[in-house]
C-alpha cells in the first residue's frame, strides 16, 4: 500500500531515465546511506569493523568489478584474485616510492594500472569464448601471482616476501597501516564502495552497459548492428580490472595490513567473488553488494552459531562441517533461486506494489 508508483507521473524522459525512478526507492537508498555512515559507526565495535564490515565492503567492490565483466559483458573470469593482487602490489610500490602522494590518488592510479594489465589479458576473449575463456583467465591468475612471488622488486626485497601497508593519512587522519583506527578505514572503504557502485550503475544503464549486454546476449547480432566486439570486451576487462585493482589495494591497505600472494589465491578470492555475483545476481550492482554480504557473513555465522546454541567441537571438525554446510547452502541456493538475491528483491518489490491485493 505504501510502495506505489501510482501518482508519480513522469513528464520527461529524464525523470524516467533516473537511477531510482520511484520515490520510495530514493528514500530507501537515502536511509541505507544514513545507516552506513552514521548508524553503524555509533554501534559497531572493532570486531565488527575488522571481521565483518570492512571485508564486506572491499569484496563488494571486487564483486561489482567482476559483475561488470561476467554479469554485464558475459565474459566469465576466474582471475579476480590476480587483478586484485596487481592493484595491491601497485599501491604498495607507488606508496613506498612516493610517500608524499595522497593515498587516495595512489589507489586510483593503481586501479588504472590494473586496468592496463586487465586489457592485456582481455585480448584472448575475442577468439576464446565461454568456459575456454574462464580457464584461460586462470593463466592470468597463476602467472601474475608467480611473478609477484618471484620478483623481489615487487615486495621491495623484504625478507619475509610480504607487502605491508605503510601508514598514510587522508585529511590528517591515519587511514592505512597497523595503527589506523578501524573507523577511519571503515569510512575510506565505504566511500569507495558508494562512489564506485554509483559509477558502475551509471555505466550499466547507459549505452556502454547496453553494448556489454548486447555482446553477452548475442555477440554476432551485436556485431552486425555495429557494436565492435573487441573494443567492447576490452573496455569491460579494463573497467572490471580497475574495480578489482582498487578493491585489491583496499584489501591490503585498509583491511589485512600486510599479506603475501597467497591472500589472492584462487580459493581465497576468485571463487568466493564469483559466488558473490552469482548468489547476488548476474548483471546487477545491488546484487553484487548483497552477494558479498552473504558470502562474507555466512562463514562467520557458521563459526559462531554452534557455540551460541551450546555445541562445542574440535576446530578441525568444525572447519569441515562448515565446509559441508557452505557447499550445501550454495547448491541449495542455486536450486531455489538461480537468478540470485537481486531477483528476490525485485519479486519483493512487485509484491509490495500489489499489496494488499494479491493480483
Amino acid at each position: 500500500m505504501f510502495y506505489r508508483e501510482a501518482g508519480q507521473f513522469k513528464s520527461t524522459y529524464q525523470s524516467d531515465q533516473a537511477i531510482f525512478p520511484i520515490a520510495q526507492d530514493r528514500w530507501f537508498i537515502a536511509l541505507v546511506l544514513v545507516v552506513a555512515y552514521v548508524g553503524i559507526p555509533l554501534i559497531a565495535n572493532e570486531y565488527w569493523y575488522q571481521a565483518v564490515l570492512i571485508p564486506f565492503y572491499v569484496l563488494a567492490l571486487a564483486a561489482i568489478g567482476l559483475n561488470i565483466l561476467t554479469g554485464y559483458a558475459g565474459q566469465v573470469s576466474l582471475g579476480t584474485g590476480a587483478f586484485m593482487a596487481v592493484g595491491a602490489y601497485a599501491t604498495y610500490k607507488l606508496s613506498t616510492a612516493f610517500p608524499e602522494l595522497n593515498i587516495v590518488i595512489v589507489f586510483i592510479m593503481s586501479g588504472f594500472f590494473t586496468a592496463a594489465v586487465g586489457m592485456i589479458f582481455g585480448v584472448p576473449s575475442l577468439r576464446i569464448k565461454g568456459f575456454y575463456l574462464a580457464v584461460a583467465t586462470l593463466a592470468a591468475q597463476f602467472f601474475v601471482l608467480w611473478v609477484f612471488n618471484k620478483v623481489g622488486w615487487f615486495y621491495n626485497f623484504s625478507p619475509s616476501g610480504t607487502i605491508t601497508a605503510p601508514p598514510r593519512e587522508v585529511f590528517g587522519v591515519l587511514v592505512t597501516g597497523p595503527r589506523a583506527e578501524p573507523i577511519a578505514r571503515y569510512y575510506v572503504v565505504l566511500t569507495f564502495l558508494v562512489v564506485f557502485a554509483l559509477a558502475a550503475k551509471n555505466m550499466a544503464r547507459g549505452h556502454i552497459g547496453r553494448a556489454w549486454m548486447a555482446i553477452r546476449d548475442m555477440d554476432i547480432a551485436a556485431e552486425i548492428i555495429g557494436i565492435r566486439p573487441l573494443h567492447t570486451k576490452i573496455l569491460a576487462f579494463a573497467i572490471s580490472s580497475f574495480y578489482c585493482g582498487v578493491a585489491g589495494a583496499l584489501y591490503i591497505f585498509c583491511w589485512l595490513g600486510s599479506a603475501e600472494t597467497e591472500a589472492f589465491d584462487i580459493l581465497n578470492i576468485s571463487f568466493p567473488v564469483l559466488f558473490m555475483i552469482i548468489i547476488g545476481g548476474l548483471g546487477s550492482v545491488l546484487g553484487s553488494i548483497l552477494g558479498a554480504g552473504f558470502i562474507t557473513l555466512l562463514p562467520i555465522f557458521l563459526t559462531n552459531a554452534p557455540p551460541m546454541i551450546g555445541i562445542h567441537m574440535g576446530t578441525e571438525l568444525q572447519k569441515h562441517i562448515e565446509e559441508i554446510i557452505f557447499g550445501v547452502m550454495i547448491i541449495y541456493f542455486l536450486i531455489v533461486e538461480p537468478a540470485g538475491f537481486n531477483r528476490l528483491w525485485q519479486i519483493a518489490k512487485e509484491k509490495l506494489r500489489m499489496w494488499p491485493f494479491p493480483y
Partner: protein
Amino acid sequence: MEVLNTFLIAPFLDMADSPIFLLEVVIGGLMAGVMYSLVALGFVLIYKASGVFNYAQGAMVLFAALTLVGLMERHVPLILAIILTMAVMIGVAYLIERFMLRKLVNQAQIILFMATIGLNFVFEGTGQIAWGSNVKKLDIGIPDNSFEIGGILMSSFDLFAAVTAAILVAVLAVFFQKTAVGRALRAVADDHQAALSVGIPLKTIWVIVWSVAGFVALVAGIMWGGKAGVQFSLVLIALKALPVLILGGFESVPGAIIGGLLIGVFEKVSEVYWGPAFGGAIEGWFAYMAALVFLMFRPQGLFGEKIIERV
C-alpha cells in the same frame, strides 16, 4: 644476447648434450601426463553427457582415494575395498543426480559450474570428517622399483600406472562405441531433448555417467595416491587438468588423453630446461600459458571442428 642465450639456445644445447636424459624427462612427462589424462577424462565424460563443467572432479579423486584408504586401514582386503569404494561412488552419483542435477535442469552452465564448486566443498568436508585429514599411505602392492631399459631409467609403478590407464581408456572406448548404454550416452551428449524424445531415460544416464566418472576418479586416486600419498593436495590436480581440457577440448575423449600426455611432457621438459632461466616453480602456470597461446591460434582446440558461425 645473454637473455636470448639462456632462453633460446642453452636449453636446446642441453638437450642435444644428453639425449638419454631428454628421453627420461619425456618419459617422466608422459607418466605425469597419464595422470592428467585420467582426471581430464572424468571431466570430459561428465561434460559430454550432462553439460556440467564438473569442478568437483578433483575432490572426487580425493574422496575416492580417502574412502579406499580408510577401508584398507580397517583391514578390508584390497579387492573388496575397491569394490566397496566403487559402490560408494555409485551411491554418490545417485545422490548427486537426485538432489542436484535433477533440480538444476535447464539452468545456465555457469550455475551448474558453481553448483559443482559447492559440491567440491561437500566432498572435501565429508571425506575428511569420515576418514581424517592427515596424509595417508596407500599401498596397493605394486613396488616402486627403478630399472633400466636400453640405458633409460624407468619406474615399475609408473609403468603399471600407464598400462592401467591405457586399459581403462580402451575399456571406456568399447563401452561408448559398442554397448547400448554407451550409444545412449552419446545420444544424450548430442542433444538432451532429442534423446528424451526417443525414450532414453536421462536420469538413469546421468547416474551412470557420474558413476563412470567416479570410477575414473577412483583409478586416478589409486595411481596418484599410491605415488604421492593420499592427501588434500589431490584436490589441486583438478586445476592441473584444466589446461589439458582447453587443449584437448571439453568434449573430446581422445583430446583429453592426447592433451594430457602433451601437457605432461611439455610441463616436465619446460621445468627441467627452462625452469632455471625463469627462476623455478613455473609448472604452476606454464601449462596454462601454453594452452592459452595454442587456443589463440586454434580456438576449437586439438580435435574440435572449425566452427561456422551463422545467424
